């Protein structure tokens, strides 16, 4: 009788332990997923009230643009903080992205048009998630492709490398091009996902300039 009670107690204890482990595991996963979602601050596309193309709503709008310091093509560190007092268009792009290629001449034209008013474009090359961190040859090829594209397109603004390293605070960058318009105080005033139009980009530049 005593032995049966002991065995039963042990079995019940083990079952309770497994139940607790299952619950703790589920809770841990849930919290980790919430933390991940919060850290990526992903935006979403919503229908335009005017009935046109969907609009990109970024949770960064109205907030300080996440800080970064990335190397340009010459290996020089360029930080967002160094552009405080200027309106900045942070444009995440890639050489392999056809819509990015289409909008590049628009960005060049708009940058030249508004530069005198204190506007700059920071183009950030985003390779994607295919290259491993230790793939030096792969990263060198990526840099060479970016340099070639910049030279061919005569890009006059800074082009920074390794956008992937700052993709999380900017919403994960699942699609390119993605642009953030930052005002002179460093606040995100607008964001765009995908190819829009030169007019829409210009309207957001004016917003960032405070015009």
């Amino acid at each position, binding site marked *: 009788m005593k*032995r049966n009670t*002991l*065995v039963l107690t*042990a*079995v019940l*204890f*083990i079952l309770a*332990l*497994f139940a607790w*482990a*299952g619950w*703790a*595991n589920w809770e*841990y*996963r849930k919290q*980790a*997923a919430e933390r*991940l*979602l919060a850290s990526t601050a992903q935006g979403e596309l919503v229908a335009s009230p005017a009935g046109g*193309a969907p609009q990109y709503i970024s949770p960064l709008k109205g907030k300080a643009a996440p800080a970064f310091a990335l190397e340009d093509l010459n290996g020089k560190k360029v930080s967002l903080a160094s552009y405080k007092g200027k309106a900045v268009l942070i444009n995440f792009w*890639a*050489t*392999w*992205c*056809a*819509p*990015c*290629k*289409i909008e590049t001449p628009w960005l060049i034209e708009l940058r030249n048009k508004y530069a005198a008013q204190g506007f700059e474009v920071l183009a950030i090359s*985003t*390779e*994607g*998630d*295919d290259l491993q961190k230790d793939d030096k040859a792969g990263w060198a090829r990526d840099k060479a*492709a970016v340099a070639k*594209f910049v030279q061919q397109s005569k890009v006059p603004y800074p082009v920074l490398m390794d956008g992937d390293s700052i993709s999380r605070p900017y919403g994960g960058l*699942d*699609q*390119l*091009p*993605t642009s953030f318009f930052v005002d002179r105080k460093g606040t995100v005033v607008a964001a765009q*996902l*995908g*190819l*829009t*139009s030169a007019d829409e980009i210009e309207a957001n530049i004016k917003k960032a300039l405070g015009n």
Partner: protein
Amino acid sequence: MTKAIMKICVAAALALGSLLAQGQMGASGRSIAKPAAVEYLFPEQVTVPAGKASSVALHFRIAPGLHINSHTPSDEFFIPTVFSIPEGAGVRLEGANYPAGTDVTLPIDPKTRLSVYTGDFEIQARIVAVPGNHMVEAKLRFQACDKNACMPPKTITVPIDVIGK
């Protein structure tokens, strides 16, 4: 008897520890799953003569609304669709015939022509298998876009059970 109960408790604790460790790895090591732009359809299994080059038709499906670059994209910067088989799989890829891409333009810029695949497409792979049963994890690398935006390049696994006879 007490020793037996102790053993049960220790085994349970070990199993529990293993479960918790798996849970923590799962939470930190995986990203949130997203629908794939390209899906491998079939075949799951092929039987080919061992040591001889054989042609195998591999079928893929691209998600609606998306396109991927063809094997010969229209621009040097674009990423081509490429099928490969890792070395040491018991199966060698001798070559592959890709379908010709369809020429499309984006609505906002009719001047830029793209060579792409949409919907279902088929790659004819020429493989040589050594005798035996080989679970091959072939790869398909591609880069997908819709009409306004592009997703980062991806490499998916193409699992094929190749029997060399």
